[in-house]
């Protein structure tokens, strides 16, 4: 994937209230961002299910989720794939966190977060760490073909946790 169609506006920056949304996490189930108030949320936009690489971004986060849970954080993957596609992908990769379908209207949530790639029809590889009050505390867009890893997320969660628990 050549990086020819980056999102024009760039990701919503730290300090912005995270736009609420309701998306399917399964064909018969929906998830809203506001359901997670009181917990940090990691919103991981990615271009598509079925990445061919071993240990791709979602597989990595799946392995790292105990580190995220240590901060009480909830991880949500999000792409333009439909709920049935997500289900097959999650089953095959044994993913233990929700994958949200930004499917109809296509990419609407990615657009609101400033990370939709018009020409490509999918989102950037973008990360948002949202605090328990629903405020974006960190955002990052990785080059589309580079898995950003989890180090930035952990640093952001560390910063959020540090403020909540003064010594």
């Amino acid at each position, binding site marked *: 994937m050549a990086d020819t169609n980056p999102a024009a506006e*760039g*990701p919503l*920056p*730290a300090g912005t209230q995270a736009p609420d949304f309701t998306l399917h996490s399964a064909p018969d189930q929906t998830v809203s961002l506001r359901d997670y108030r009181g917990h940090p949320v990691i919103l991981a936009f990615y271009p598509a299910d079925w990445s061919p*690489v*071993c*240990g*791709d*971004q979602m*597989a*990595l986060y*799946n*392995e*790292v989720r105990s*580190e995220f849970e240590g901060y009480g954080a909830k991880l949500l993957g999000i792409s333009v794939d439909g709920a049935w596609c997500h289900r097959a992908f999650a089953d095959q*990769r*044994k*993913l*233990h966190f929700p994958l949200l379908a930004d499917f109809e209207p296509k990419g609407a949530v990615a657009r609101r977060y400033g990370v939709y790639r018009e020409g490509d029809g999918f989102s950037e590889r973008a990360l948002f760490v949202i605090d328990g009050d629903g405020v974006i505390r*960190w*955002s*990052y*867009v990785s080059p589309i073909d*580079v*898995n*950003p*890893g*989890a*180090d*930035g997320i*952990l640093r952001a969660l560390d910063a959020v946790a540090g403020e909540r628990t003064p010594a």
Partner: protein
Amino acid sequence: MTKRDAAAALTLPVGKRDHIRGPADAAVTLVEYGDYECPHCGRAYPIVKTIQKQLGPKLRFVFRNFPLRESHPHAEQAAEAAEAAAAQGKFWEMHDRLFERQFALDGEYLIEYAGDLGLDVARFRTELSSGAYAPRVREDFRSGVTSGVNGTPTFFINGVRYDDSWEFEPLLAALEDAAVARS
């Protein structure tokens, strides 16, 4: 927009706890975070070996465990087996064996390899079944996560994550460049 300040870098410097091949004063240090059951790591294994031969004492190579337990059911046990072998002074022998026999990583094979390598098999078996080296493997894994490991294998050259191709020629060229930059 918040951005990463610099390229991902090793948070745990190479030190006494590591499995190291090559001299401490080598011009370039290559750290691999790998998984014994990962096919990409299996393919990278002979490439790294050839590069080690080619660069000789210019290169210091370090291997750390990054088992993807959900994707690879044998990866964790294999990583612990390498650490159990390390406790008996045979880390690299086991490391090589595991990559060369990546298709046979069930428990009984691990025991067989321990025997082949002349390890105290009773001790090896006990340590493996009690998870004696699980904390060590977790420590490797955590250090990888905080360093920006984003899949397996992930390489770091002189402490900085290497995002380009690890095929023989580009990896060798990157290491040679890093060695020149150092000297």
